[in-house]
């Protein structure tokens, strides 16, 4: 690890007044909710999305989907005033479905119905359920009703899962279904540990293939690694699959999670206990050095898994007084929120706006800001090391001892870059101050 630069002394940054979130919530911090759905659906092999929306929405969503989700051609009907007010939405959707069905090797045609189509009204019973044997699945994701990008992922995944999940076969003993868009190495790490307990990862959703959706129905239990897959978990619960909430995060979190998985899959208790203790010991060995001790870090993203990262940073020794996310509060977020509040987090903000994050920036003095693009820019303008949560943290392993070591080492390195941030802001603010 690089030489450690002295950080803000913990007591100097401890404010007296309690934190107040932004008085106004003017600029919501989330990618367009519908993009969450497109991202999950476009990545399925052979999926040919048909989008039902106006041209501005289509442009924006196609732009980010081509870049971030899948470089996949996308069809839509032209919907203008004439079509929307003339009762042509249904006909338009059908025309796009027919065009999507003309492609070869189509596994599913997700029909993504967005704000204006939902306002005009699109009746599911008037859509085909399949065209030439190609399944058609309606996914309703109006941004005005869904509120965040991660929650739309859940709605999209639940919609295709309902259609494809295997409801006939027996549950496979010891087979765990993971739910969450995680770093590709994470399921392998988890699988490696589960095998020591006589279990395994059956599949990870949202997957890349409809077969993975089918397979999920055969799981003995499902682990919702991210706390916003409420609908998805319900689909599997109805199918009789047991649910494990939380994620194998940090030392205590990993051990507790392994025990919960052991109970859900009815594994040998002694073996589970031994493996859980082993994992905890490895993690504690790394944490003993407290690599982030003395650092105050802000965590703000819109991916819905921010609380997991915050837990990890805290276990690494950091002070994380403020965590904000785009998702809403629910039963799935309760355990993480309680843990964070018991470990120094003073504010956990749901459905946050940039005004909340900026209030936190004024209230505390941070050594590192892990934020949305807007917040990261705001922090860089103040010479504070800062990175875009989505692009930088989501591309690293996170879970169990191995993931923890990778993520914490990276964060430590980021903080050592402070002089670069200060030099830039000194140079550019001198120029623009006039």
């Amino acid at each position, binding site marked *: 690890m690089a030489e450690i630069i002295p950080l803000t002394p913990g007591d100097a940054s401890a404010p007296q007044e309690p934190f107040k979130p932004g008085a106004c919530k003017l*600029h919501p911090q989330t990618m367009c909710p519908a993009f969450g759905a497109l991202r999950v659906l476009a990545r399925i092999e052979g999926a040919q999305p048909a989008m039902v929306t106006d041209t501005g929405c289509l442009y924006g969503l*196609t732009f*980010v989907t081509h870049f971030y989700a899948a470089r996949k051609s996308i069809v839509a009907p032209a919907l203008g005033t004439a079509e929307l007010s003339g009762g042509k939405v249904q006909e338009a959707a059908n025309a796009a479905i027919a*065009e999507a069905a003309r492609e070869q090797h189509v596994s599913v045609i997700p029909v993504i119905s967005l704000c204006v189509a939902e*306002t005009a009204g699109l009746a599911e019973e008037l859509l085909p359920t399949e065209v030439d044997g190609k399944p058609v699945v309606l996914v309703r994701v109006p941004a005005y009703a869904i509120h965040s990008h991660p929650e739309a992922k859940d709605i999209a995944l639940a919609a295709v899962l309902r259609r494809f999940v295997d409801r006939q076969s027996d549950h496979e003993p010891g087979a765990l279904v993971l739910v969450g868009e995680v770093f590709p190495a994470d399921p392998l790490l988890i699988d490696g540990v589960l095998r020591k307990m006589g279990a395994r990862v059956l599949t990870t959703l949202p997957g890349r293939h409809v077969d993975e959706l089918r397979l999920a129905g055969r799981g003995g239990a499902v682990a919702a690694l991210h706390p916003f897959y409420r609908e998805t978990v319900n689909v599997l619960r109805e199918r009789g699959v047991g649910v494990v909430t939380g994620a194998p995060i940090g030392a205590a979190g990993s051990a507790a999670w392994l025990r919960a998985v052991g109970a859900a899959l009815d594994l040998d208790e002694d073996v589970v206990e031994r493996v859980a203790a082993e994992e905890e010991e490895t993690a504690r060995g790394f944490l003993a050095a407290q690599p982030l001790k003395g650092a105050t870090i802000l965590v703000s993203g819109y991916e819905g898994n921010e609380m997991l990262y915050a837990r990890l940073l805290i276990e690494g020794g950091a002070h994380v007084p403020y965590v904000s996310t785009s998702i809403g509060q629910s039963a799935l977020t309760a355990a993480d929120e309680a843990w964070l509040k018991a470990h120094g987090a003073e504010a956990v903000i749901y459905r946050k706006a940039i005004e909340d994050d900026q209030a936190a920036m004024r209230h505390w003095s941070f050594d590192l800001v892990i934020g949305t693009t807007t917040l990261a820019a705001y922090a860089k303008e103040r010479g504070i090391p800062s990175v875009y949560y989505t692009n930088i943290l989501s591309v690293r392993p996170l879970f169990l001892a191995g993931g923890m070591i990778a993520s914490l080492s990276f964060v430590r390195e980021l903080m050592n870059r402070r002089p670069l941030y200060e030099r830039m802001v000194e140079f550019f603010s001198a120029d623009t101050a006039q």
Partner: protein
Amino acid sequence: MSIQLIRDISDTSSFWGAAWVFGCFPDLHIVCDAPIGCYNLLGVAVTDYTDALPQMANLTPTSIREEDVINGTAGALVRTIDDLRSLGSLEGKRLLVMSTAESEMISADHTRLVARIDPQARFFWSRSLEQDEWTGRDRALLFAWEEYGRPSVDPAAAPGAPNLVNIIGPSLGCFNAPADLYEVRRLIEGIGGTVNLVYPYEGSIASTPRLAEAAVNVVLYREFGAPLAEALGRPYLFAPFGVFGTTAFLRDLGRLIGADPAQVEAFIAREKRTTLQPVWDLWRGPQSDWFATVDCAIVAGRSYVEGLTALLGDELGMKIAWTSGRPRRPDEPDNIEIRRRIHARAPAFVFGSINEKIYLAEANARATHYVPATFPGPVVRRTTGTPFMGYAGAAHIIQELVNRFYEMVFNFLPVEQVKAPAAPGGPPHGAPAGPPAPPSAETMPWTKEATERLNAALEQVPYLARISASRSLRLAAEQAARARGAPEVTVDLVEAAIAHGGQG
């Protein structure tokens, strides 16, 4: 009424176009009557890729929610404006409220409400459900002139000086605008013009009346901007492309601003020895011979399509296979047709957006060079060094194409690596039977049909990659013939080699 289909949309809506114009004004704050997605995609996500701005700082949404769709958005709008005021975000700024597709869907016209809240504020009905970005930009430019400029201008006033020139057009979301603007400004100043306002890029609400001070307007794009120039009532020119197009532009502009013709000609002469010298050298060199052997397709804004067609086709003699401009004319291919054409036969160069790039990838057209020339698509074009317009644009494009030729030559040069000789006694034990026979020095006879099929297949391959493709196809077909013990190469063997992807 039949339903029209869109594949990978190219032009966004008038709301986006208008917001990309109004967003340039630092003394204006925009409230868009929109759900959170419209705000994020325009103000944070896409504008970061088109303009490399972390976010549009003067844009705030009303964040329409389900209850607003049912009850109307007036409450959300009032709350948003109150909050902006309480934060001081509107101090020293004019307020503009814009409708979006969703607010238009529920007929949320706030003209009166906005006037009641603040007599200085304005409401802009975006017509987002029926108009495209180009119309949106034009309407926004005219709106700004009508609302913030013309009322305080004396219609009888003469220009501030005969050589004052406005540049109209560059705004957010315009591909490569900084480089083209830099070049056009350089050209104007080179013959003695003075740039008065770059609008809206470097404009503001406060400076809008100054549009009237210029004697001449240069409109950067054919796809929008001319209606504002018409409204200003002064002579105007479109920004130029190519060696000859730019020369004509300089002489025309010189006459309009009353420049001394000797000064104009002196500038042109100097340019030939400086900016344009590489064009002349590459033209005299072997590089220009290539231009006659390759073709290209151009998908871009109207200006780029016409400008590149003139430069590459008329001036350099490259074959222009097909073009499609924005806004698209009915006789130009839409994306469904563009995709079909690229899948059927990709030209050697394709200028376009990420859509064309995707179609090329789908077609596995590795011998085609893709050159970004328009949005959509994530590409940073914020430096001044990548112009398409003017003399510098001609030199830059020619230089780029020559470098792509070099790249192609490198990629398709045969690589005869020395392979380790096979172990004595044939393949290792347990290897599958029937290994391909080693290439023979002897020439293999081909049937007439097989040769014709080979030639037809090569016709589909861009010229420069053809030699390499012919070599690998021939090798694959002959190896298959030998493996089968056939005396000659037949058409079915060629088909198999083509299907196997042996063409490059």
